[in-house]
């Protein structure tokens, strides 16, 4: 599903964010990317979502070579991807319904389809009762769950989450990770960038550890980490 081959990413300032990244993520796999701040976790996700362009190497997502996607085709490509942010980035002047409906409205779904899928997505994150509220009326954890509902409502093939539990307490963080697992179980490929290594170690999923823009180690709880 996602393949990085000798990928380098250097920002115009000269900062080498990623260096010689090689990794392969299968369809339906759930992978955690961990590392300290500045390790390159967010950059890796940004490259997959074409927020930034890599400077060398090859990235293939869902069979598409990202280098060959022209700027005017990026929006169509992004409709395959759901994105979750640390600070959830909801539209505060819209209702929860409107926030979650956004990806469906963009892709031109019918009104009935939007209504049905938004309700289903909010039901999945246990927030159906808040459908007509505004984000500011919700707690931090609830807002993050709205962000998750928005990211999955259009049934993306890939779900990217950048520090999704960064603002949550441990119990809510654990619930959030379990929620991601549920989406993964229905076939969605999930990539989560998180610095909370202690928690993600218990998730029994593959973990990629970055350091200074390079892959430091790769493995899971059952297998020994392989140093790179």
């Amino acid at each position, binding site marked *: 599903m996602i393949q990085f081959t000798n990928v380098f990413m250097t920002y115009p300032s000269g900062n080498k964010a990623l260096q010689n990244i090689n990794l392969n993520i299968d369809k339906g796999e759930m992978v955690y990317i961990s590392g300290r701040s500045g390790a390159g976790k967010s950059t890796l996700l940004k490259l997959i979502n074409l*927020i930034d362009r890599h400077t060398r190497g090859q990235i293939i997502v869902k069979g598409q070579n990202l280098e060959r996607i022209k700027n005017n085709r990026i*929006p*169509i490509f992004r409709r395959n991807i759901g994105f979750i942010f640390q600070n959830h980035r909801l539209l505060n002047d819209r209702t929860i319904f409107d926030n979650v409906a*956004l990806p469906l*409205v963009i892709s031109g779904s019918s009104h009935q389809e939007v209504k049905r899928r938004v309700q289903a997505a909010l039901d999945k994150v246990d927030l159906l009762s808040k459908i007509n509220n505004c984000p500011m009326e919700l707690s931090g954890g609830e807002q993050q769950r709205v962000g998750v509902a928005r990211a999955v409502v259009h049934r993306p093939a890939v779900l990217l989450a950048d520090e999704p539990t960064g603002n949550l307490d441990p119990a809510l963080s654990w619930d959030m990770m379990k929620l991601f697992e549920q989406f993964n179980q229905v076939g969605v490929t999930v990539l989560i960038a998180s610095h909370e290594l202690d928690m993600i170690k218990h998730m029994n999923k593959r973990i990629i550890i970055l350091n200074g823009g390079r892959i430091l180690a790769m493995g899971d709880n059952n297998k020994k980490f392989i140093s790179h």
Partner: protein
Amino acid sequence: MNQLIKTWLAQHAQAFFFSLGQYAKNPVNNILTTIVIGISLAFPAGFYVFLSNAQIVSSGWDNAVEINIFLETTIDEQQATDFANQISKRNDIADIILIKKDKALAEYKKLSGFTNVLDVLDENPFPNVILVKPTYKYFDESKTKHLVEELRVMPEVDNIQYDGKWINRLAKIIDIVKLVIFILSTLLAIAVLLIVGNTIRLSIYSYRHEIEITKLFGGTDSFIQRPFLYSGLWYGIFGGLIAWILVSASMQILSGPVNNLSILYASNFQLTGLGLVNTFCLFGFAILLGLLGSWIAVKRHLRSVEPK
């Protein structure tokens, strides 16, 4: 295909009403902006109405352009009639009136009160006179000169008089006024473009966060720019409406005094307003400027908002 059209129409309808909603959400700022646009549009529209009325007034004077041909005193009435018939066949002459010398004398006697003095004279001192109206509607100095030169060399003609200089001057003044109005209108149209463009630029800036999110979830540029373009449309429509109200109200205020003035000059002139066609033109122009201003702003600034 049917579904695509439905989706496209639904997204347009959504952007249409969303932009109207956004306009209503911030009424004070938007109304102030619209008033500025309306005043900027009212000036050229008002100038245009002024010019139209000035042309209506001056066209009455243009039609009064006449060439007076004084025939030789030796020409008798029959010869004068023949000569009048001859020149009336010219393409550049629309109409002629022959004032025979006897009639001229009788009228002069009647008007001057010198009956006794004129009776003493052995012969009628008045020549036969032909009043010529050219075919061209507005005074044209070169055409008039050409006609006069051709008539002057004819043996029957003693003298020719015409006074078109002041009309010519008026026409030149109107030409200058037209040019000034054109320049002012262009400058005000640019001002409207800048006002709309700047308002949309600020709007893009305030929706920066939403634009970023929309782009992240696959919103195309055309999807994102649509509400801003409709905002430009609303500024155009409401700005045009305010301009129309201002011009119409001004016409209403001025019509009474202008009527009174025209009565003093024994004229039935009445102020003419924008009319239906020009009202449509005003709204069309306002909408065009609104859309163009927003389109320029959107093209210029939307690309700078990218997800981080």
